[in-house]
C-alpha cells in the first residue's frame, strides 16, 4: 500500500511547500496555489496535488476535483511548444476549426495531447481577445494572426530545427 | 513618495498633472482652439523653426492660452522660413513668414490675444496647408 513511486525532488517539495506557505496554507487559496504550482512544474502531477492537499489540510480528492474542473490546469506535461488555436466565436467564423484540424493532422495528435517527442502539444483556447487577427494561433508566447489552413505547414516549419 | 491625503491634495495634484494630457484633451476638439502650425522641414529647422516652436509651446502654456502647437512640413515659402500658420477658432488661417522669437511673442500678444493681425503675413497664392498636402493635418 505504501510503495508508490515518487517523482518529486526534495527541493521541488520545499518549493511547493513554500508556495503553500506564502498563501498561509489557507484552504481558500487552493486555486492560487495551483496556479503557482503549475507555473513551477508546468503541470500538476498527482504528487504535487498530494502535497498541496496535505499542506492546505484538504482532501486530495477535493484538490483533484478542482484541478479537473478548470481547463487551465493540466495533469499532463505540455509540449515544449504548446500550440493553442483560438476557438472563440470570432475565430470560429473565420475558419479556426479548419486550422485546428490541420494542426492535428500535421502533428498527428488529438486536442489536449502532446506529441511523443514532447515537442508540440495542442489545445483549443477560448478567445484571446485578438479578434481582429482571427483566426489566431499561439505557439508558446508567439502569436500568429490570420492563419489559414494552408499556412499551418509553414508555421510548423519554423520549429523544424528546434 | 507622494501621498494623497485629502480631497484638496487630489485637486492640487490634478491641476499640476492636467497639463500632461491637456494636449490630448484639446486635440479631441481642435476647432474650438487656437491652432498654431510651425513648418518644420529641413529648411525651417535650419532657419530656427525649432526654437520658434519651443517658444510657442512654453509661452502659450505660461500665458495660460489654450492653443495647440503642431509642426508641419515645408509650406513652400522657403524664402520666408521659418513660417507659422495661425488659425483662431472660427477664422481663416493666416501664415506668417520669417518668424523669430520676437515675432512669435508679438503673434501671441497681438494676434492670438487681441485678434489684431501682425506684420509679416504671407498673402500670395494663399493655400491652406490642408489643401497643399494631401490628407491634411
Amino acid at each position: 500500500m505504501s510503495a508508490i513511486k515518487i517523482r518529486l525532488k526534495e527541493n521541488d517539495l520545499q518549493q511547493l511547500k513554500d508556495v503553500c506557505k506564502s498563501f498561509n496554507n489557507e484552504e481558500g487559496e487552493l486555486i492560487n496555489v495551483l496556479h503557482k504550482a503549475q507555473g513551477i512544474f508546468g503541470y500538476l502531477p498527482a504528487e504535487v496535488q498530494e502535497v498541496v492537499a496535505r499542506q492546505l489540510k484538504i482532501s486530495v480528492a477535493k484538490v483533484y476535483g478542482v484541478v479537473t474542473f478548470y481547463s487551465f490546469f493540466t495533469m499532463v506535461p505540455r509540449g515544449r511548444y504548446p500550440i493553442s488555436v483560438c476557438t472563440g466565436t470570432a475565430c470560429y467564423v473565420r475558419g479556426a476549426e479548419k486550422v485546428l484540424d490541420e494542426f492535428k493532422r500535421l502533428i498527428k495528435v488529438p486536442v489536449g495531447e502532446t506529441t511523443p517527442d514532447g515537442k508540440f502539444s495542442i489545445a483549443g483556447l477560448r478567445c484571446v481577445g485578438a479578434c481582429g487577427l482571427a483566426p489566431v494561433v499561439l505557439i508558446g508566447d508567439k502569436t500568429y494572426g490570420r492563419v489559414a489552413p494552408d499556412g499551418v505547414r509553414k508555421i510548423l516549419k519554423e520549429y523544424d530545427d528546434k | 513618495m507622494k501621498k494623497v491625503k485629502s480631497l484638496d491634495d487630489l485637486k492640487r495634484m490634478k491641476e499640476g498633472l492636467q497639463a500632461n494630457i491637456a494636449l490630448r484633451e484639446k486635440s479631441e476638439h481642435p476647432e474650438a482652439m487656437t491652432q498654431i502650425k510651425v513648418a518644420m522641414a529641413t529648411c525651417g529647422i535650419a532657419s530656427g523653426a525649432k526654437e520658434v516652436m519651443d517658444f510657442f509651446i512654453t509661452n502659450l502654456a505660461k500665458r495660460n492660452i489654450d492653443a495647440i502647437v503642431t509642426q508641419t512640413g515645408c509650406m513652400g515659402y522657403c524664402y520666408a522660413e521659418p513660417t507659422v500658420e495661425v488659425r483662431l477658432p472660427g477664422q481663416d488661417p493666416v501664415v506668417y513668414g520669417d518668424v523669430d522669437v520676437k515675432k512669435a511673442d508679438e503673434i501671441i500678444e497681438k494676434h492670438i490675444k487681441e485678434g489684431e493681425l501682425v506684420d509679416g503675413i504671407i498673402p500670395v497664392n494663399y493655400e491652406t496647408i490642408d489643401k497643399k498636402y494631401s490628407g491634411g493635418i
Partner: protein
Amino acid sequence: MHILVCGGTGCHASSSNLLLENLREQVAGKDLAGEVQVIATGCFGFCEKGPIIKIIPDNTFYTQVQPADATEIIEEHVIKGRQVGRLLYKDPVNKEVISDSRKMGFYKKQIRVALRNCGFIDPENIDEYIAADGYSALGKVLTSMTPEQATKEIIDSGLRGRGGGGFSTGIKWDIARKVQADQKYVVCNADEGDPGAFMDRSILEGDPHSVIEAMIINGYCIGADWGLVYIRAEYPLAIERLKTALGQAREYGLLGEDILGTGFNFDIEIRYGAGAFVCGEETALIQSMEGHRGEPTFKPPFPAQSGYLGKPTNVNNVETFANIPVIFNKGAEWFASIGTEKSKGTKVFALAGKINNVGLIEVPMGTTLREVIFEIGGGIKDGKKFKAVQTGGPSGGCLTEKHLDTPIDFDNLLASGSMMGSGGMIVMDEDDCMVSVARFYLDFTVEESCGKCTPCRVGNKRLYELLDVISKGNGTHKDLDKLRNLGEVIKDTSLCGLGQTSPNPVLSTMDNFWDEYLAHVEDHRCPAGQCKDLIRYEVVAENCVGCTACARNCPVNCISGERKEVHFIDQSICIKCGVCFMKCKFNAISVS
C-alpha cells in the same frame, strides 16, 4: 506632440511593444524627448487594423504599423511634418484615405464612456488617470455624500449590470448596503468567458484605475472594506496592469487606510480564474474564489445576502464598474440622458466575425444594429451578404436582417430572442451555416457546463448530438421537434444562468432560419456549404486550366492531374478543408 501607441492585447500580439520601443529609441536618438512623448495606452478598439498609433494633436491615425515603420514616422511625420501616406486608414467602401480618427466611420458614432480613457491615457501611470479627472469621483463621494446618497445616485443613473443579466446596479448595491453584517465584500467580475468578447480585458488593460476607483466607491456605499478582482488567468497583460495600478493607488494612499483623510479603509486583492466559463455566474465565481469547484449555487440566498465566505457581497463586472466614476463626475442625470428609456448609458461591444472593422466599440444604448454593423463596422467583409449577427455569446441568439433597425438595448434584444450578454457581437455572412453556428455554441456549452444539474449536464449534450445529426444530414422532423422541446425544458429547469440561456443559440436560429434547418433535414443539403458531411468539392472541367494550384496546396494530396490538364479530386481522400476552393483563381472548384 504625443504619440499614442496601442498596448492592448490585439496590438500587443502584433508586436506593438516592439514598435513602442523603436519609437522611443528614435525620439531619444533624434533628441526630440522635449517635444515628443511616446505613450503606451490601452486599446483604441480598432483591432482589425492593429497595431495602431495616433499622433496628437493632429489626430493622425496610423494603422497596421510595423516596428520597422518607427523610423519613417519619426523622420517624416514628426520631424518633417509629412504624413506617412501608406499607413493611413483607407475606408473599405469608398477607398478614401482618412487621417483624422474623428472622421472615421468607425469612431463617428461612438460615445466612449466606459472606454473613455482607453487609448487616451497611459494605464500604467496613475498621474495620467488623475489628470483625466481620476479619483475625483471618489473624492466627491467620500467627502460629500452618505453611502445612501451615493447609492441613490447610481440608482438614479439607471445603470444596469453590463455582465449579462442587466439588473439595476444601484438596486443591487442598495440590497447589499441594507444587509447588516460585520464584514462585506466588493467583487469585480473580470472572468470574461464569452468567446469573442474582450471589453473587460480591454478596460483593465487600458484604464485599470477606473475600476479600482469604482470598487472603492462601491465599498463605501455598501460598507465593505475589502474588494476582490476575479480575473481570468489567461489575461496576463490585464493582470500586470491591474497589479501596477493597485500598487500605485496604494502608494498614493488611494487604497488602504484612511483614504483621502476620511477615515474610510479599503483594499483590493486579485483572485485568478482558471478557465471555466461558468465562473462568470456570480455564485460560481464566489465558489471559485473560495477555492472550490466553480459550481453555481441556488439563489436565494443572493450574494448580497450571503456571498464570499458567507458574507454580503456585491458582484459587478468590469464594464459596469468603469461607468461608475463618470456617473459621479458628470451626474446621474447626464448618464440617464444617454440611451433608451429603460437602458441608460452606453454599451461596449466586441464587434467581430465577417465584418470589415473588427474591434471594440462603445455606442449609446438605442443605436441600431444597422448603424453598428454598416457604419461603425464598415459592412460585411469581401462584399458578401449580411446574414446574421450573434449577440450575447453562448447565451444569446442570432438576429437577422429584420432586426437590423431595432435599437439595441437590454429589453429589445431579449424580446428578439437574444440577449445583451457581455457584449460579444459576431457578424455572419452568407457562407455561415446556422446549424453549424448553433452546434458551435452548444459544443462550447457542453464543454463549459459545470455538470451540477441534469438539464444542463445531459440536456445540452443531447442538444449538441441532435444538432450534430442534423448537420450530417441524418436528422428528421421529429429531431427538430425534440430540439425545440428540449431547448425549452433546459431553459425552464436549469440551475443557473448558463443552462437557462444555453439553448438560445439553437432556439433563435430555429426561429429565424427555419428553412435552413429544413434544408438539412429534408434535402440533406447545407445551403451555406459549410457542413462538411453535406458538401463535396469538385473540379469544374470547363473552367480548369490545369494550373496545379489546387493540387500543390491540397494538404492530403487528393487532387491529381497533369499540368494544363483538367484536375480531379479523389472524394475518398478529401477532407473538405476548402483550400483548393480558396486557391483556385479560375472558379474551377465548385462546392455542392
